[in-house]
């Protein structure tokens, strides 16, 4: 198996899917000639031409709306938004059109649309380019929310997202594009809605996704030195949400901590905690705790930014409170 970056894995997924299905096209700001702000669409314009790799104006609502209409008329668009913060510009289209069309029209139409959007903090981009908004999209019924962490998942999940007949928000972390890992060549599908155990352990379950998977793995190493064996569950997405894997892990470890990069308040960690209370209370030996980002707009200053995002030490310290 070749070792490639997340960026290359995503590019591979796009290329293979476009080769397989001629109804797939990509649209977005700078996706064509410029080959993508993060170079995820590199080489695609040259290979597929401008009808299938469409450069758009900087007009997010227009991009998502066009993609939604094209999907309703039988195509399979992949819309790239330059960052997830800009998705908010298109929020009316996403919440009021993309998410509801199938239901509102009694199932007469489907919206097989994938919206890709990079997000996450760590590059001193300030409050308008740094947020992780997966919880926001997961709140809205009708949208699938997929969030990969490793290159193999990035490829397999993106292929599944593109093939899904439901609209999918595919959220990539800017800090992970350069991360390398082994990725199967050719047909490699990871089904949506199945969490993955990235490290197995006996004593505590860390429920997480995206870049926080790496933070949790690092925390697990620190905890191992304290004699605590942590299991790291990578949700790989929020809708569908794989509670089966979380609850199975909990039955084994009897303790859980949720770890998310985004704002702690009203975030997805709270949802996981609530579901554990409802479905796994008897398996708990301790309260479920949460770790999340500071409830502030992301600051520019390097030190402030760093302190706004959970790190391994914070995660480890939170876990220690359970013992």
């Amino acid at each position, binding site marked *: 198996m070749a070792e490639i970056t997340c960026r290359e894995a995503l590019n591979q997924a796009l290329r293979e899917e476009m080769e397989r299905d001629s109804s797939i096209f990509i649209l977005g700001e700078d996706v064509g000639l410029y080959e993508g702000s993060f170079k995820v669409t590199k080489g695609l314009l040259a290979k597929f031409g401008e*009808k299938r790799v469409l450069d758009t104006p900087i007009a997010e609502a227009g991009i998502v709306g066009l993609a*939604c209409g094209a999907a309703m008329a039988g195509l399979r668009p992949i819309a790239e938004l330059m960052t997830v913060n800009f998705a908010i510009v298109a929020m009316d289209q996403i919440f009021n*059109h993309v998410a509801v069309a199938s239901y509102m029209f009694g*199932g007469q139409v489907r919206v097989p649309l994938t919206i890709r959007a990079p997000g996450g903090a760590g590059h001193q981009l300030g409050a308008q380019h740094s947020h992780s908004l997966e919880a926001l999209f997961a709140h809205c019924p*009708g949208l699938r929310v997929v969030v990969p962490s490793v290159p193999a998942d990035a490829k397999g999940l993106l292929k599944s997202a593109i093939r899904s007949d439901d609209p999918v928000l595919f959220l990539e972390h800017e800090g992970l594009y350069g991360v390398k890992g082994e990725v199967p060549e050719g047909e490699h599908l990871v089904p949506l809605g199945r969490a993955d155990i990235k490290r197995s352990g006996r004593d505590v379950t860390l429920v997480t996704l995206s870049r926080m998977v790496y933070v949790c793995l690092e925390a697990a190493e620190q905890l191992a030195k304290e004699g605590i064996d942590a299991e790291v569950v990578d949700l790989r997405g929020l809708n569908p949400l794989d509670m089966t894997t979380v609850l199975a892990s909990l039955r084994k470890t009897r303790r859980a901590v949720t770890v998310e990069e985004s704002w702690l308040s009203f975030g997805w960690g709270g949802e996981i905690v609530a579901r554990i209370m409802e479905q796994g209370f008897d398996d708990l030996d301790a309260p479920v705790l949460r770790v999340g980002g500071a409830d502030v707009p992301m600051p520019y200053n390097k030190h402030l930014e760093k302190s706004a995002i959970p790190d391994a030490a914070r995660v480890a310290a939170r876990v220690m409170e359970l013992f």
Partner: protein
Amino acid sequence: MKEKSPRELLEPRDLLAIYRDMVRIREFEESCPKLYSQGKMGGFLHLYSGQEAVGVGVAHAMHREDYMVSAYREHGLIMAKGAEPKYVMAELFGKATGVSRGKGGSMHMFDADLRFMGGYGIVGGHLPLAVGVGYAILYRESDEVVVCLFGDGATNQGVFHEAMNMAALYRVPVVFVCENNGYGIGTSVVRASSLDQLYKKSCAYETPGLKVDGMDVLAVYEAVRQAVHKARSGEGPTYIEAITYRFRGHSISDPGTYRSEQEKKIWQERDPIPNFAAFLVQAGHFTKQELAAVDGEEQELIKAAIRFAEESPDPDPEELWTDLYVE
């Protein structure tokens, strides 16, 4: 050779079909307030009375396989596109037999078979969708056209400009039809738009813009026919402003007190239906009796539609959870 006028292009049977469609919509809409007050329907109810010449003129200028996308005042539009009144009425009653199976209601009607791609309740929100439908046509290199209808209020929304720009940029086969009925809810166009000649808004996008009398069904028909032909020939979008008037308030809950009686009277005199009937009689196409017979048939059709809606079942409780996800 001089191009034929719509009066020459349309056969008498086409003219009668146009008349029938307008009467059908008027009968349908005017039956609604009573049913609403009886509690048979809920939600908002934006009636189309007064604007029939626009929807019917548009629909007759399109092919059956062309797409229509519209806003929330769309009962008349989906029927002009070919939906049977009984399924539209059933949707207003929220019944399982409705065009959106009871899940859409007045503002969200849809008919995939008729390529009526929806009514939408967010002002202007559907304009980029129409451009996307048009992009799909280009993509498949087929020769359909999409006609997108919206109100005057939509032209002040950001997405109007995004959609106009992208449609022109990609030469999408879309015809934008602005139904300017003079008011965005209760605020007149002149108080809402810095430019009240709305057809001129397209000039920023190198898109031909023109104004048409929206109370004259043949004028609408002719303008849209030409725009559809251009779009089908690869010449890109056209933007048509149809000047019209709604005889009722914005919605069922709006008595329309912001409009003077004198203003309403002036527009009532321009009612597209009796005026078109007078034309058909004067031109010798049909007699008053023949048209009265059509009126009677349409009244019966709407009565039957109401009976159908009343007798139709509510959606099964399980329907709460269907149609959301495919897998």
